[in-house]
């Protein structure tokens, strides 16, 4: 899948979550998403960036503009080298939280995007990829 642009953002502190929101919004505007789709993907990114910081111990966010023929998309990758998720299926369930959250971040983010992929290994880290197609 041809990636026409990539930008990378570190997530090591709270203010980085805001930066990720802004960068994802810029990306969604670039592929000319509808307002609702913009809001959804930025909200999903906010959830996942926060998880990255709080549960992943910080990491990196990569934002890519995709072009597949006439179709344009926005891909956001959240990668950390944190503790990893032991039971992914459980983590995706609404209401499940290993911390003090509401337990909506992972499952919720999945519902807000077109494609959602999660790879995680205990002791090594987690990589979550979301894609919003225009």
């Amino acid at each position, binding site marked *: 899948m041809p990636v026409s642009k990539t930008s990378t953002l570190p997530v090591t502190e709270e203010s980085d979550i805001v930066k990720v*929101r802004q960068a994802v919004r810029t990306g969604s505007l670039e592929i000319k998403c509808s307002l609702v789709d913009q809001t959804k993907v930025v909200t999903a990114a906010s959830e996942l960036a926060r998880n990255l910081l709080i549960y992943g111990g910080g990491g990196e966010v990569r934002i890519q503009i995709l072009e597949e023929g006439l179709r344009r998309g926005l891909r956001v990758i959240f990668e950390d080298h944190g503790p990893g998720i032991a039971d992914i299926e459980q983590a995706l369930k609404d209401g499940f939280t290993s911390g003090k959250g509401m337990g909506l971040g992972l499952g919720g983010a999945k519902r807000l995007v077109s494609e959602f992929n999660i790879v995680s290994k205990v002791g090594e880290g987690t990589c979550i990829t979301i894609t919003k197609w225009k």
Partner: protein
Amino acid sequence: MADSIPILQLDDLLLVTIQVDMHDRLALQLQDDLTRQINETGARGVLIDISSLEVVDSFIGRVLGNISAMARVLDAMTVVVGMRPAVAITLVELGLSLEGVHTALNVSKGMALLRRS
């Protein structure tokens, strides 16, 4: 970055308008400030205008829910006004119910709701 969100007092109501993309700590600061001010002023109602917010994620949603719950304990009612349609749609999809949080379309309707209670 803003230090705190300003809170206005109008008779026995507290008014807040969130104009910035809040980072988490600012949201928690607002939660604390509002709770303290309800207590100090004896306010009966809190109106939170979120018409400038383009994104309300589960953290902000939880803060709004907390503010509402804390206000209720202190015998005050909270109304959140001005939620953008795209935000409302996203919140439903996210699964955030905002239970216990009253909402109104705009400041006027929110004030009317507070005055009636």
